[in-house]
């Protein structure tokens, strides 16, 4: 029982990080109707950048977020303007392939620059943990969770309380109607893409502190992000967050009680089991269209 609770705590904490990355993916899907198959490699890219900022310049990964978030925001806007905007007519499924291809290209560059051996960011507090009522709370995961809550809270405030947020939600619901009502859909989509990629920027550093990574880690993370997206229903922010925390907990509990080898697989089983009952995911709506 102690083991189970311990694993659940650790799982919830890391689930927050998954929630952060996956929420970015959900925002991007909302405005572009494209699943961002490059969200995982964006996270790895930021993990590498935090790694360089930490080892070469001594900047703490939690501080480097201040640089990475605006940089990734601009990067996201750039991708939308240069790549995705042109595809709007030929369908969103092409965008998925474009981003997948882009992700593979970025992995190639990262493999070339950093080589393929595993890296991990190890600041002095990396292995510290507190003991609360007999349970270990790893410091890095705790702060990562706080960071995720803070960023997700900010995103939620932007979405619910600002004019930009209203335009974002409107574009997500119905781009045509939004355009008719005076929303600059292209601009809003670009900003949405920027926000989504920036979420990966915020998560990269903590990801790199918690797990060892290299370019190929993107597939591991990608499979999790995609499962979260489908389980959460692709568009829904609450759905995404719930699915991410479920993933974190299932993964951690299975790793602790059965074997780490089966932790990723067990979540995929959960995913398929849910889809038998609800093909649209936990919170989703049915999608239409074809490639």
């Amino acid at each position: 029982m102690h083991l189970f609770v311990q694993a659940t705590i650790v799982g919830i904490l890391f689930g927050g990080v998954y929630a952060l990355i996956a929420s970015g993916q959900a925002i991007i899907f909302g405005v572009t109707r494209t699943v961002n198959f490059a969200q995982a490699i964006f996270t790895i890219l930021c993990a590498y950048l935090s790694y360089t900022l930490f080892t070469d310049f001594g900047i703490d990964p939690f501080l480097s977020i201040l640089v990475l978030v605006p940089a990734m925001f601009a990067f996201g806007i750039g991708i939308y303007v240069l790549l995705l905007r042109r595809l709007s007519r030929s369908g969103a499924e092409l965008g998925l392939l474009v981003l997948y291809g882009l992700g593979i290209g970025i992995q190639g560059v990262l493999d070339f620059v950093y080589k393929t051996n595993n890296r991990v960011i190890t600041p002095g507090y990396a292995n510290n943990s507190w003991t609360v009522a007999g349970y270990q709370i790893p410091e890095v995961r705790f702060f990562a969770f706080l960071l995720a809550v803070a960023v997700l809270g900010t995103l939620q405030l932007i979405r619910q309380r600002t004019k930009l947020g209203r335009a974002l939600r409107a574009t997500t619901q119905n781009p045509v109607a939004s355009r008719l009502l005076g929303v600059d859909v292209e601009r809003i989509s670009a900003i949405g893409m920027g926000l989504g990629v920036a979420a990966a920027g915020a998560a990269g550093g903590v990801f790199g502190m918690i797990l060892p990574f290299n370019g190929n880690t993107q597939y591991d993370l990608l499979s999790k992000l995609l499962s979260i997206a489908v389980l959460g229903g692709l568009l829904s922010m609450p759905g995404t967050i719930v699915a991410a925390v479920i993933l974190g907990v299932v993964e951690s509990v299975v790793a602790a009680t059965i074997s780490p080898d089966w932790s990723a697989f067990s979540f995929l089983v959960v995913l398929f089991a849910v889809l038998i009952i609800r093909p649209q995911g936990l919170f989703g709506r049915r999608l239409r269209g074809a490639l």
Partner: protein
Amino acid sequence: MTRPGPHSRIRPAGTIQAVAFVAVVAVLPLITGQHWLVSLLVFTVMYAGLASAWNLLGGYAGYPALGHGAFFGVGAYAMAIGTSHLGVGGGYRPFVLIVPIAVGTALVVLPIARLLLRTRAAAFAVLSITLMFMVQTLAYNIRSLTGGSSGLIVPLAPFPAAIFERPFYYAMAALLALTLAVCWVVRTSKLGLALNAVRDDEDRARGLGVQTELVKLVAFAVSAGLTAAFGAVWAYYITFLYPGFAIDPLLALGAILMAFLGGRRTLWGPVVGAALIGPAQQYFAYRFGASQLYLVAYAALFLLVIYLLPEGIVPSLARRLRRLRRASPAAATHDQVATDSIFSAGDLG
């Protein structure tokens, strides 16, 4: 928009194409004795078949399948387990296994396909690649069967060194011919029309009485079974399997790239795409190593194709030819009719 009607007749132009294609494919490996060249041909023919098999589901039915690496890997591991554990024997005997492997994969995949096909578009793309990751995890974890991350060795085929690649080449070529024949039958039958209808508007098609569930399942199962058959031959040729290598996300991406370049939803498009990219892919891998710059070159090529040739070569050429012919009505001779019918099999929608 033109849609291919049921071309139930076997037309002379089509027969000529088929015969010419078979002749070229049959003669190609005899021209050169260079092992690396024949090996390159084996992979090119394999990718032509994989891209054509993908086209059944990803092209005609319009379901963006990204996980065909799973079926390829299942075929590969089935071949490896069949030859090393079950004692099928060496020489040409393992090739017999291809049939049960293909049929078995197609049948086993049915319940999974039924589940996946409840989703569409982006969700389907995501689930298909998720399935691939699941199969890869299984290959890593069921060590007693697959050897896990230390890999699985297939007994080396006892073919003479001078012509070692030839049996594999002809096995791949036969499978390619079979795949193209299946594609042709699908295109010229009601099944092809039903798949077109599914792609255009699935709900309306079902409303009009098209057996959408059934045709999607058939396309999925046949596509998966053929992919597994190529995987089986590949395993016997490569002789060493490793989960990350036999069940590779890049495999489906390569097939998709070729189908896009040549023209998805056309009969010859995937073959044209594979003929152009297959050798380049082998060259990149050989020149730049299996990762790093190879991945960059691959991604660049992928983006170039999607942005510069979104329709693919075969449909673009067909359109240009038709425009040319319209410009000079006097030139509508037998030749023109023949050239047009080469491409008329292509869906220009």
